[in-house]
Structure formats: C-alpha cells, structure tokens
C-alpha cells in the first residue's frame, strides 16, 4: 500500500477502525458457521426455496425502483415543484420508519381492508397480503428512497449547464433528457440501484408484516433466517451466509464501475 501525501495518518487510523467495526460482526458470523455440514444445510428445500423467492422479489423490486425512481429523482433535482422540501422529506421517510411500522402502514393502505386495498379487491379481485406481489411491494417501499436519494444527489452535483447548452442549441426537453442527462447519470443509477437492491434483499420487517411468511411464496432469505433462529440456529447462520454471498457477488464487481472514484 502506498500512502499518498494527502492522507494523514490519523485519518487512516480512524478509517481502519471503521472497517474493523463493520467487518468484525461478519467475521464472527463466519467463525460460528457450521462449515462441515454447510453443503447439506444449503441443499435443503427451504433454503433453495427462500433463495428463489428472495431473488425474484428483490430483482423485481429493483426493476420497479428503476422505473419509478428515475423520474422522481429528476423531478426533485430539476423541477421547481411546490413544497419540494416537504416532498423530498416524505420520499425518504421509509428510510427512517421502522420497517415493521412500514409494513403495518402498507396493510392500512393496501391490505384487504386498506384505504386503497379494499378497492383493489372489489374492482380487480387483487389482494396483496400473503402474496409474492405483496413481498415485492414491501421491498419496493423500503428500497425506493435509497435509489432516489443517490440519483438526485448525482443530478445536483453534476449541475445542469450541459442541459441548458443543449436546449439553446435547439434540443427538445425529452431529447436533452435522453441524450444528455441520462447517459451521464448511468453510474449514479447503477450505484443507487445496487443500494436499493441490497436493501430489498435484506428486507425483513415490512415483508413479514405486510406479506406474511409462507415458504415458496413470501418467505425470503431474511424471513427464513428469522424462522430458523427459533429452532435451528446453525441453519440460520447458513442462510445468512447465502445472503452475504449473494450480495457480495452482486456488489463486488459493480462497485468500482458504478461509484465514480474521483
């Protein structure tokens, strides 16, 4: 490791402490992992099932986040909407809301007797609780703010002078968005998407409260882990290892490419 002249030793020490703080619990988990029986544990039906549900739910949620979040981030960064601060605060609320409360709120809104949910059932015969779609809704609810905050921040730091330049050269607003704004935004969108996807993958409280817990339908890896803690702690650790491995597999290769280094 070479130390650049602008990296004071004290800063490096604190950074190292932070890394230790974040990795120590994970290392402790690895140390308690039942390595010898791991293969058998991981081939169990409930583990495979939970992994399948988790991937389906988190990837679908990430897709919805991309579609809903990109326009929202752009509007928050570029359009002078009234009460923008209030809107932004409302948008990030799910980040601070305890997920269990978020799940209960979702029930009040989209449950069978919820504000909107009762009409969904009456008109379209759609009920979200206890379905995989419900798990996707819960995951999207908690993950969307992470994407919006990341992309909006990137839009603000890059500024809009290139956009204005393109406009004065005669490009239509949609063309500016498509040919100037979005291409430069791809790295931030990738970073925000990775964050949102990771949040969706680890989502627990809103899912179990809103969507329930049924193997093969709504029982994601975090729910299966919680369930296993009751009866089989070794299986719970094995399940967390799957969660760690899946998220590392996605986050490791994407990080350098998506997070602008300089």
């Amino acid at each position, binding site marked *: 490791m070479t130390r650049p002249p602008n990296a004071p030793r004290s800063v490096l020490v604190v950074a190292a402490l932070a890394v230790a703080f974040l990795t120590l619990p994970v290392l402790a988990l690895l140390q308690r992992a039942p390595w010898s029986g791991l293969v058998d544990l991981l081939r169990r039906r409930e583990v495979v099932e939970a992994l399948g549900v988790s991937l389906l739910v988190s990837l679908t949620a990430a897709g919805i986040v991309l579609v809903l979040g990109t326009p929202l981030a752009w509007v928050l960064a570029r359009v002078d909407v009234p009460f923008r601060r209030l809107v932004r605060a409302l948008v990030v609320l799910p980040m601070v809301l305890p997920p269990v409360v978020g799940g209960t709120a979702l*029930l009040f809104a989209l*449950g069978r*007797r919820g504000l909107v949910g009762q009409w969904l059932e009456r008109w379209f015969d759609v009920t979200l*609780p206890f379905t995989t779609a419900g798990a996707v809704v819960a995951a999207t609810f908690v993950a969307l703010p992470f994407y919006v905050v990341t992309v909006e921040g990137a839009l603000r730091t890059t500024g809009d002078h290139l956009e204005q330049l393109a406009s004065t050269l005669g490009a239509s607003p949609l063309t500016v968005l498509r040919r100037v704004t979005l291409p430069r935004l791809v790295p931030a969108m990738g970073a925000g998407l990775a964050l949102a996807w990771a949040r969706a993958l680890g989502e627990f409280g809103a899912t*179990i409260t809103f969507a329930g817990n*049924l193997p093969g339908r709504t*029982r994601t890896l975090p729910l299966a882990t*919680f369930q296993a*803690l*009751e009866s089989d702690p070794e299986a719970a650790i094995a399940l967390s290892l799957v969660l760690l491995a899946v998220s590392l597999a996605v986050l490791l290769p994407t990080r350098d490419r998506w997070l602008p280094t300089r």
Partner: protein
Amino acid sequence: MWTHPPAGATLLAVLAWLGAAGCTEAPGDAALTVFVASSLTDVTADLADEWTLTSGVGVELVAGGSNHLAAQVRDGAPADVFLTADAELLDDLQHRLLANPVTDQMTDRVAGRVPTVIHNLAINHLVVARPTAGPERRPADLRDPSVVLVACATGVPCGDAAAARFGDLPVDSFEPSARAVVARLALDEADLGIVYATDVAAHTGLAPAWPQEPTCPCVTYAAASLSPSGNPFVAFLTSDRARQILTEHGFVAGPPR
C-alpha cells in the same frame, strides 16, 4: 454561516425534551425483572401489580417470544424470573437454575416451600378464531385453500401446539407470534387464525370461528426463578390470588399446591 437555524433549534428542543424527561423519570427501582412469554403479557402485568401491592417490590416486564427470551437469558440477560410457554426451554437454563440456591430466609418467607420451578403454571387452549367483522365459519373451512388462514410458525409454542393438534393445514402465513395472528384477524386481513383462548377472550375484534370445546394438544406454561430475588415472586404465582387472576384472563390454572 448559520444557514439552518430551524434544524439547530429542533435539535436543541429535542435535547431539552430528553433532558426534562430524564429528570422527571423515577430512578430505576424496579427490583425484579420478569421475562415473560408474549401470550402471558397481559396477565403477568396484573400479577405483577398484585405482587407489587403486597410485597412493595417493583416489577419490570420484558415480553417476547419464549425462544428469544431463553436465548437472551442464556447470553446473560439479567432476568430474575422467566415465564415461558415452552417448558423444555427450562432445561436449557439449568445452569442458571442450579446457580440459584434457595436461601433460608426465602424458605421462611413462604412457610417452608419455595418452588424455583413450576412446570405447570397454567394451560392455554387453542381456538380457531375469525374476525368479528367476518362471517361465521364451519370446521371444514379450516382445510379450504380459498380461506385465508394464518397460524404461528413452527418453533414458536403456539405453532408447535397447532401443528400437534391440527396437523398439516393450508396455512397462508406462518406468523412469528400468537400476537401477530391476533393482529391479522383484528385487521380483518385473514379469514381464520389459530390463536389462544385467552386472545379470543381479550379482543373484541376476534370471535371463535365456530363453537369449540377446550381440547389439547395445548400450551402449558412454566415459571422459573433465576435468581434469589425471583423466588418469592415464583412462590406467589402458585397462590390462590394468582390462580384467580390467571383464571380471570381465561387460563386454566395449574393444580394448587
């Protein structure tokens, strides 16, 4: 420059509020910490009040799933008394029980008999319940896949008892606690739920799905004192007054001793 006075002022206000709250709060004089299975929360609050009246000893309740509480005790949580819906968990805690010899003073206090473990404190039966707002049901609905049915997960006492009594059912969601099942029914998100008889008695939002006789397999609660200061409270749990409170809440109190 001081660009965000509102944020700073808000923070100051919150800190002032916390400070004030800290000053008005009574000093921590809860002498007894009782870990209690969530299905016993309400009745234990009444039992604790009664105990505080007679003994002058304050009680702090920590409610949760029996398994989680047992794990916390195993990891050294400062529980004086443990009330569990799963008596087998007490075997796990043998070391804490063995480290709690009954002192002479305690023995005097309850006339020569101080149980540190009560294996059959009370029984709670399972009931198939429906939301009061929903239609009445028939026993056949329990196995109807189009009926939304919720139950406790296996590994949780109410789930194990339900599995023992009903076998495989087309459950739509395995909830982490009986309280969670109650919430599903109270919100009318499920058509049927397997809950405790005490839950049906305590909530107006729930009703028996059809007339049901108390039947076992059911849940048997156990109590254990984990420290010398917990012994008198556990002894109190077998008193007539405690049995009366248990019965009022819909439990079947264990045999008198």
